[in-house]
C-alpha cells in the first residue's frame, strides 16, 4: 500500500528528515557573526578581546585579525562547466566592469555597506557560547549617508565604492523605438511600477558544516548547486576541487536563495581548515531576515502603444534595478526582465533598458521567478490600463495580441526564441475556470449599487523561461546497476524540497519499463556524482529529467550490447523489456538485468546532456473585493492555468503551482522590506514585521494546466517551479485596480497593504468608457 504521496514524505512528514543542523559531529564549533547595526559607514575599530575571555569561546576574529581570509566572491567564474557566477560573464549577464574594484569581503574590512554585514566572527563550543562571545565584541563605525533607493544610488551623491559610480551595469534588449511610433498610436499608456524587494523566506535558513579530515574537507550545506559550492570553496582555499566534498542533506527550501557562496560560508570553511576542527553556521531567522539575499527590487517606467483596434505597436521598459551593496548575480538578473519584456504578445517593437544600481542593502539575487515576475507585472498591469483606455475588455485585448500557436518557434524583438506555446488556450481555460462572464455580471450588479463593496477581476498572461541561459543549459546524469540488480539513478540536480526522490526514479523506471521502487536516486553529493550544475531556473525536470531519460535509454542500449556479446548474437537481435533481455530469434527465456551484471560486472552510464531553453506560459485570473473603508483586499478566487510542457508527476507540479501562487499572493498583498532613512530594515520583530501569507490568508486557488510539449528536449518538459510567483501578482493587482477603477496606475504599488489600497480607493476614478 502506498501510504505517502511522495517517497520523501515518509521521512519528512514524520520528523525523520535530517538537515544540516541535525548532523552531530563530535567537537564541532558553532559560529556566530557580529553584525553591523549601521547600513553604511567607515569601520574605525573592531575589538574582539573581551569575547576571547568568554567561557566556551574558542576564538574571535575581525577582518584585521584574519588578514589571510579569502574574499567572498572570487574568481571561480571561469571554472569549466559552471555557470560562471558571481562574475557571470555568461550570456552577457555581467561584465568585468561591474565587479572590478568592488570586492565583497568575507568580513567587512574598513567599510560596511549593508546593515547586518559581518564585522567579526566568534567560534564557541555551541551556539550559546558563540553568541555570548559575539555580545562582547565592540566596534566603532562612523556612519555615512545610506543609499536606500536605486534613484538615490544612480545620482551618485554618495558612492558605495570610492571613485566608482553606483551604477554597476547597463544593458539593453531590443532596438530603440522611434518617437513617431508613439505619436501615431491611438493609445499610449505610461506608468511607473515598483517591484519591491522581497525575502525568499525558506523554512530552513542557510546552513553550512565544514569537517576537515585526512587532508580533505567535507562540507554539508543546504544548497542548490553543490558542485559550484565545491569549486568556489576549493578556489578560496587554493585547493584542488577533489579535496572538497559537498553534501546536500535534506534542505528546507531555497527559492533561489541558496545557490551562492556567501561570506559566512567562506569564513566557516577557512576557520575549519585553520583550526583543523569541524565548524558550522546555522543561520537563525533574524540573521536570515537581515542578511539573506533579497529578490526583485526594480523601479520600472513603461510605455505601451496600440492602434485603435487594440493591436500592440510598441512597448518600452526602463529598469532601475536595486542590486544591493555588492555586484553579484543580481547585477545581471534584470536582463532577464529585459529579455522577457516582450511577454506573450506579437508586439513588433520592444525595447528594454537596464541600469543596475548599488544600494546599501544585502545583495539582490534570484528569488523564485527571478526577473520574470518583474517583466510580467509591468506588462500585464499596462495591458489592463490600455484595455480601459481603448474601451476593450482586458481579455479581448489580450486575445487580439497573443502569439498564435502556429508562429512557434517565435523570435521576439528582445532576443528570445520561444520554443512552443498555445497562449490563447491557456487564457480561455483560465476565463472558463474562473467564470469570467459571471463575475463581470456580478461586478456590473455591484457597480449599479454605490454602497456595495467594489469587486474586480484581474488577468495576467505570462511567458517565462526555464532551464537556464546558454552555457548553463546542460547537466550530468547517470544510471547504474549494482550486482544485486538495484538500479541507481544519479544526476547533478540538488533538491531543496522539489520531490526529486519521487519524480526521477519514476521517470527512469518508466523509461526502462521496470518497477519504480527498483530505482533509487542519488544526488547532492559531489563524491557520488562527480559533475553537476544543480537546481535553479526551474531546470530540474526539464534538464536533469531529460538527462536521466537519455541516460536510461543509453543504459538499456548498453545492456543489450552486453547481452549480445554474451550470447554471440547481433545487438539488433536482443530486446530489452521490463528489465529483462530477450534473444529475439530463439524465443528462449530472457536474462534479467541482475543476472546480466552478475555475469558481466556492474553496468554504468554517465552522460552530459544539453537542453535548449524552455518557455513555460500560462494565464492567471483573480477576483478580489475591497473593503474601501479599511483598504482590505479579499481575494475571492485565484485561478492559475500553467503550461509546463510534459508533466512528469501531476501532483508534484500542482504542489509547485500552489506554493508559488501563495508566494505570488505574498508579493501582491503582504511582503515588503520597509527601510528607515538610515538604510536599516524596520523588521525588529522578524516575521511579525515581514508578513508572509499563512494558511489563514490563502484564498480558494484553482490550478489547471494545458500541455504543449517543449521541442527543446526529447522529454518535452519545461520548468514548473515558478509559475505562481510570475502570474499571480499581476492578476491580483489588476483585480484591485479593476475594482477601484482608479485612473492612475502608479497609485497601486505592491504590496497592496490596506493603507495603500485605502489611499488608492480615494483617488479619482477613470471615466467609464
Amino acid at each position, binding site marked *: 500500500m502506498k501510504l505517502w504521496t511522495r517517497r520523501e514524505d515518509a521521512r519528512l512528514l514524520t520528523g525523520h528528515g535530517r538537515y544540516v543542523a541535525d548532523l552531530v559531529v563530535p567537537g564541532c564549533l558553532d559560529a556566530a557573526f557580529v553584525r553591523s547595526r549601521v547600513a553604511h559607514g567607515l569601520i574605525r575599530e573592531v575589538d574582539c578581546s573581551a569575547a576571547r575571555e568568554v567561557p566556551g569561546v574558542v576564538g574571535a576574529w575581525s577582518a584585521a585579525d584574519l588578514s589571510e581570509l579569502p574574499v567572498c566572491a572570487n574568481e571561480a567564474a571561469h571554472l569549466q562547466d559552471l555557470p560562471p557566477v558571481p562574475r557571470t560573464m555568461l550570456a552577457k549577464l555581467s561584465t568585468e566592469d561591474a565587479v572590478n574594484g568592488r570586492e565583497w569581503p568575507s568580513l567587512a574590512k574598513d567599510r560596511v555597506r549593508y546593515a547586518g554585514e559581518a564585522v567579526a566572527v566568534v567560534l564557541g563550543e555551541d551556539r550559546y557560547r558563540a553568541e555570548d562571545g559575539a555580545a562582547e565584541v565592540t566596534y566603532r563605525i562612523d556612519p555615512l549617508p545610506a543609499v536606500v533607493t536605486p534613484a538615490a544610488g544612480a545620482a551618485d551623491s554618495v558612492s558605495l565604492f570610492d571613485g566608482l559610480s553606483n551604477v554597476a551595469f547597463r544593458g539593453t534588449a531590443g532596438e530603440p523605438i522611434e518617437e513617431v511610433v508613439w505619436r501615431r498610436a491611438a493609445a499610449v499608456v505610461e506608468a511607473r511600477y515598483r517591484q519591491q524587494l522581497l525575502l525568499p523566506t525558506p523554512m530552513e535558513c542557510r546552513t553550512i558544516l565544514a569537517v576537515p579530515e585526512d587532508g580533505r574537507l567535507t562540507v554539508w550545506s543546504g544548497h542548490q548547486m553543490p558542485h559550484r559550492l565545491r569549486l568556489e570553496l576549493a578556489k578560496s582555499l587554493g585547493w584542488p576541487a577533489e579535496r572538497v566534498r559537498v553534501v546536500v542533506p535534506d534542505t528546507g527550501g531555497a527559492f533561489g536563495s541558496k545557490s551562492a557562496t556567501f561570506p559566512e560560508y567562506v569564513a566557516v570553511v577557512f576557520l575549519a581548515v585553520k583550526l583543523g576542527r569541524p565548524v558550522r553556521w546555522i543561520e537563525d531567522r533574524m540573521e536570515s531576515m537581515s542578511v539573506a539575499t533579497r529578490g526583485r527590487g526594480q523601479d520600472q517606467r513603461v510605455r505601451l502603444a496600440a492602434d485603435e483596434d487594440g493591436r500592440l505597436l510598441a512597448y518600452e521598459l526602463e529598469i532601475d534595478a536595486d542590486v544591493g551593496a555588492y555586484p553579484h548575480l543580481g547585477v545581471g538578473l534584470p536582463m532577464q526582465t529585459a529579455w522577457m519584456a516582450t511577454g506573450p504578445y506579437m508586439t513588433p517593437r520592444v525595447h528594454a533598458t537596464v541600469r543596475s544600481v548599488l544600494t546599501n542593502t544585502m545583495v539582490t539575487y534570484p528569488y523564485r521567478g527571478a526577473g520574470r515576475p518583474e517583466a510580467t507585472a509591468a506588462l500585464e498591469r499596462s495591458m489592463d490600463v490600455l484595455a480601459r483606455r481603448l474601451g476593450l475588455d482586458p481579455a479581448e485585448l489580450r486575445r487580439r495580441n497573443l502569439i498564435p500557436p502556429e508562429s512557434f518557434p517565435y523570435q521576439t524583438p528582445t532576443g528570445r526564441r520561444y520554443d512552443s506555446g498555445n497562449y490563447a488556450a491557456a487564457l480561455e481555460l483560465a476565463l472558463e475556470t474562473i467564470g469570467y462572464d459571471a463575475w463581470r455580471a456580478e461586478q456590473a450588479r455591484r457597480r449599479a*449599487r454605490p454602497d*456595495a*463593496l467594489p469587486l474586480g477581476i484581474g488577468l495576467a498572461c505570462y511567458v517565462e523561461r526555464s532551464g537556464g541561459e546558454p552555457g548553463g543549459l546542460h547537466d550530468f546524469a547517470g544510471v547504474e546497476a549494482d550486482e544485486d540488480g538495484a538500479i541507481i539513478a544519479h544526476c547533478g540536480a540538488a533538491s531543496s524540497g522539489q520531490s526529486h526522490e519521487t519524480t526521477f526514479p519514476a521517470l527512469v523506471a518508466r523509461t526502462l519499463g521496470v518497477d519504480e521502487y527498483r530505482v533509487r536516486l542519488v544526488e547532492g553529493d559531489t563524491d557520488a556524482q562527480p559533475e553537476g550544475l544543480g537546481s535553479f531556473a526551474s531546470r530540474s525536470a526539464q534538464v536533469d529529467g531529460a538527462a536521466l531519460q537519455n541516460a536510461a535509454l543509453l543504459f538499456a542500449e548498453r545492456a543489450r550490447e552486453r547481452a549480445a556479446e554474451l550470447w554471440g548474437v547481433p545487438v539488433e537481435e536482443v530486446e530489452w523489456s521490463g528489465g529483462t533481455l530477450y534473444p529475439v530469434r530463439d524465443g528462449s527465456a530472457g536474462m534479467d538485468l541482475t543476472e546480466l551484471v552478475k555475469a558481466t560486472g556492474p553496468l554504468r552510464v554517465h552522460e552530459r546532456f544539453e537542453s535548449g531553453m524552455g518557455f513555460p506560459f500560462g494565464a492567471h485570473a483573480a477576483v478580489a473585493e475591497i473593503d474601501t*473603508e479599511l483598504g482590505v483586499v479579499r481575494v*475571492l478566487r485565484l485561478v492559475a492555468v500553467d503550461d509546463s510542457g510534459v508533466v512528469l508527476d501531476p501532483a508534484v507540479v500542482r504542489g509547485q503551482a500552489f506554493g508559488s501562487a501563495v508566494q505570488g499572493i505574498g508579493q501582491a498583498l503582504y511582503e515588503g522590506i520597509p527601510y528607515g532613512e538610515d538604510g536599516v530594515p524596520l523588521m525588529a520583530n522578524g516575521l511579525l514585521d515581514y508578513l508572509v501569507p499563512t494558511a489563514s*490568508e490563502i484564498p480558494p486557488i484553482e490550478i489547471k494546466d494545458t500541455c504543449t510539449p517543449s521541442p527543446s528536449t526529447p522529454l518535452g518538459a519545461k520548468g514548473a517551479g515558478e509559475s505562481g510567483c510570475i502570474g499571480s501578482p499581476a492578476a491580483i493587482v489588476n483585480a484591485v485596480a479593476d475594482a477601484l477603477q482608479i485612473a492612475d496606475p502608479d497609485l497601486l504599488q505592491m504590496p497592496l497593504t490596506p493603507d495603500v489600497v485605502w489611499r488608492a480607493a480615494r483617488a479619482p476614478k477613470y471615466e467609464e468608457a
Partner: protein
Amino acid sequence: MKPAAFDYVAPHTVREAVDALGDTWRDVRVLAGGQSLILEMHMRRICPDLVVDINHVAGLDRIGLDDGTVRVGALVRHQVFESPQAVPGPLGRLCANAVVNIAHPPIRTRGTLVGSIAWAHPASEWCAIAVALDAVIEVRSSGGVREIAARDFFLGPLQTARAPDEIITSVRFPLLGGSTGVGFVEHRRTHFCFAQVAVAAAVTVHDGLIVDARIGLANCADRPVRARAAERVLIGADVSAANDHPFADAALAGDHQPVDHPFGDADLAGNRLPADHPFARAGRAAADEDAAPVDEPYADPEYRRQVIAVLVGRTLRQAVADWRSHAEPEGGLR
C-alpha cells in the same frame, strides 16, 4: 537567537516568588506563559539575571468570582477565554471575541492574560479591555499588596507602574450587567501579526438608549487608551436602527478570513454608517480626540485614524447586535 545565561528559580508559593523578586540589584523577570519574554530573551533584548518561573505556584491558575468582579489569576491561559462561559455574562462574550485575535491557538495555550497586562504592549487586546472596563491590577511585594487602577498602570510601550520587586498576582474586572452588549473588532494585515488597531466596546442600553459606554483602543497610542470622548458622544444615543447593517457580522469586520462568496450573496450594501450617525461621530471622536497614533510601517497616523473611526463604528454595531441577541426581557437584570 540564543538567550544569555540566567539563573532560574521555580517557587511554589507567591511568598517565595516575592522573595525572589526582592533582589532589586538584579534584573529579575517573571515567567508565566513566556509568550513575549522568551522571544525577547532569544533576541537578547532582555538578558535577565534571574527568571522566576511561577508555573508551579498553586492557586494562580484560577478565575474567581466575588461581588460583581472577576479575578483572573496570573497563570490563567488565553485559551481559557475562548469559551464565552469562562466568565459570566457579557464580559465572557467580550473576552471570547477578543481572545481569538491573540496569536495562534498553540500560543494561547501558554500565554496568559496577566502576562499580557504585565508586558503592556500597546497593541495588546487585554490591555485595551482593562482600561475600558477600569480593571484593577493586584500586585504583591515583600511590603504587602497594592492595587493599581488600569488607567494608572500603563505608562508607555512596555512600561507600567509595577515596581521591579512586585509581582502581579491577578487582575480584577467588573462583571457586565445583562443589558450590556459587547463588541471586539481588530484590524491587522494577516492573522499572524499585531493589531494595527483593535477596539473593545461595551454599551449598556436602557429603554432603547445608551446609558453607559466603554471603549478601549489598542495600538492607537503608546499605551492602551480608553476613548472617553467617543463614549461621551454615545450617551443618550438611540440604538433602535443601529444594527440594520450586516457589518455586525464579525467575519466582515476588518478580518482577513477568505470569504467564499457565492454569487449574489456578497451583497454588502449599506456597510457605511451615515456621517451623522452617533456611532460614526463616536468613531471620529475616538480617532481625533482619544487616539494619539504613532507612525509605523504600513500604518501612518492618518491611515490609523481612519481605521480607528471605522472600527469604533463597527464595534459599536457589533455591541448593539450582541445586546439585542442577549438582552434579558424588560424588567430583568440590567
